[in-house]
């Protein structure tokens, strides 16, 4: 376990009667890449603003490097932000923008020049020092904004929807670059986004935020493979979410059919939800399938076909397959026991972890 650089303890935030954050607690370990992921209005940007010091928490405590920082103004925090709209100063050129923070701190001219040069080199903007901001493209402005933040050597770098204004290709390139930059600098990145692909691609840890609460925290793989609740399963990736009944340990009944699974630790005949990822469903002949379904639609997406089909009980299934099928055809759907992920209603993250530990130890 690394050292905690940042801690939230029961942080709440209200604007008048509007509750934006409800009892948020988390730890941020130094040197990792974190992503706050959630739909718009979920409260993720508010968390970022509280870390940066632009907003105050209504209740609870924020600790930075062990010190309570609720009352420390934004300009005294060892945190720098890359803003969604970049917020570059239009009356300064690239070098002046990047040098701003150092100049404020009274660093000597020669050091400023060196560090500005270094920072611009890190974001691959060598030679752009004298350019005016208005003469830069969106992607270049993005890099200037990053350089302006990292030149101050903050302990934590906050990125607010930093890639959302870029086109798809540039965004994917920047994801790789940001990840590299974070490893190179070794500082903590906290990235806010509503884009789940971005979150999965870059993060060490993802925090899923919805409705002012943290829904689930974990590595991208954990969150994708073991979503805690309906919201997370639905928000991250594509999924088939079906109501089911847990017959006994390792046996779940979906739509009146029993299936072997790898989940346990629940009550007998407990009502649960089951997640099956579309890419885990395989299409086969009807006699070999665990379910029989009729293909309704088929979309070619380049990497695969997105297929929808309905089974005998008229339940709709989403299937991603690299093999083509025919609309209207009856097919069999198969999946392995480990493809079934069982979710209990209203299970907290702590309970979920405890349950997982309990039966994994038995094995």
């Amino acid at each position, binding site marked *: 376990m690394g050292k905690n650089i940042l801690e939230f303890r029961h942080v709440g935030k209200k604007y008048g009667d509007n509750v934006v954050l409800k009892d948020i607690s988390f730890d941020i370990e130094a040197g990792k890449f974190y992503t706050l992921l959630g739909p718009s209005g979920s409260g993720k940007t508010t968390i970022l603003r509280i870390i940066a010091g632009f907003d105050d928490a209504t209740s609870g405590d924020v600790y930075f490097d062990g010190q309570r920082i609720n009352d420390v103004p934004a300009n005294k925090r060892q945190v720098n932000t890359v803003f969604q709209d970049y*917020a570059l*100063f239009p009356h300064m050129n690239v070098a002046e923008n990047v040098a701003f*923070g150092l100049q*404020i701190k009274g660093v000597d001219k020669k050091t400023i020049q060196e560090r500005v040069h270094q920072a611009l080199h890190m974001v691959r903007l060598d030679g752009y020092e004298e350019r005016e901001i208005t003469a830069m493209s969106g992607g270049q402005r993005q890099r200037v904004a990053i350089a302006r933040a990292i030149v101050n050597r903050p302990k934590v770098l906050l990125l607010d929807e930093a890639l959302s204004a870029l086109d798809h290709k540039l965004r994917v390139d920047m994801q790789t670059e940001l990840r590299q930059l974070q490893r190179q600098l070794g500082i903590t990145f906290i990235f806010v986004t509503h884009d789940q692909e971005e979150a999965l691609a870059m993060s060490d840890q993802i925090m899923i935020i919805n409705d002012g609460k943290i829904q689930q925290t974990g590595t991208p793989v954990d969150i994708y493979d073991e979503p805690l609740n309906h919201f997370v399963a639905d928000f991250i990736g594509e999924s088939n979410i079906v109501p089911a009944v847990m017959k006994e340990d390792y046996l779940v009944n979906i739509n009146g059919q029993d299936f072997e699974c790898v989940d346990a630790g629940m009550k007998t005949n407990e009502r649960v939800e089951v997640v099956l990822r579309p890419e885990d469903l395989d299409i086969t002949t009807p006699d070999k399938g665990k379910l029989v379904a009729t293909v309704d639609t088929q979309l070619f997406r380049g990497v695969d076909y997105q297929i929808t089909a309905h089974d005998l009980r008229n339940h709709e299934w989403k299937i991603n397959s690299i093999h083509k099928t025919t609309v209207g055809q009856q097919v069999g759907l198969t999946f392995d026991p480990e493809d079934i992920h069982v979710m209990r209603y209203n299970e907290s993250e702590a309970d979920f972890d405890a349950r997982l530990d309990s039966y994994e130890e038995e094995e």
Partner: protein
Amino acid sequence: MRQKAVFIVPYALWIVLFVIAPLVLILYQSFFNIDGQFTVNNYLTYLTSSVYLKMTVASVWYAFLITAVTLVISYPTAYVLIHLRNKQFWLLLVILPTWINLLLKTYAFIGLFSRNGSINQFLQFVELGSHQLLFTDASFMFVAAYIEIPFMVLPIFNALAEINPSLINASKDLGATQWQTFRSVIWPLSLPGVKAGIQAVFIPSLSLFMITRLIGGNRVITLGTAIEEHFLTTQNWGMGSTIGVILIIAMFIVMFITGDTRQKGGRQ
């Protein structure tokens, strides 16, 4: 194409009749003496007469003072307004007096400042005695600044309103204090508004004449007063036009100095 040509007619008429024609007429008039003979003597008189030069210096000096006082009052006003919840409403209150006729406002001040006016009545009430307020430089400056303030507040307010709030957050985020943020971000970004305000106040102040008479008691004689005198009293239209031309030139100089000198996209 033909349809578009129709739309330009009002603008073209306006420009020709009310901008170009008067300018040409003033320039033309300025080359005739009081007896209607062509001459350049008006300009020579202006440039050699100590009276006119003193008047010009006085005009520029008072216009400068009025502009300075107005700016000192208006910038903080605009800055405070921008942070208020109902800023549009408070701004409206600042603009409201401009809807009232200038002369009417000036007469109102006579009522306030006169020997038996409200202010002297109050001073007497608190036993400070009655004072001569009207026809002083101070009262002239006060009324002139009062009248010009909305024209300074408005462009500064607009310039401040245009500043992206995340720039201010960015400045704080990079370690700047409130004052440093003001000095390095807010002030430079509001400069275009300040310049526009200076243009809107300085140039009209050069040719103020009503206030100089009614409030200043003709103790302050500006170029505006001189033009009025030449056209209405001495009937020397040529000399009046000459001073008019001088004012127009002064206008262009001010516009040039306060013009937008920021280079866009350049310097590579």
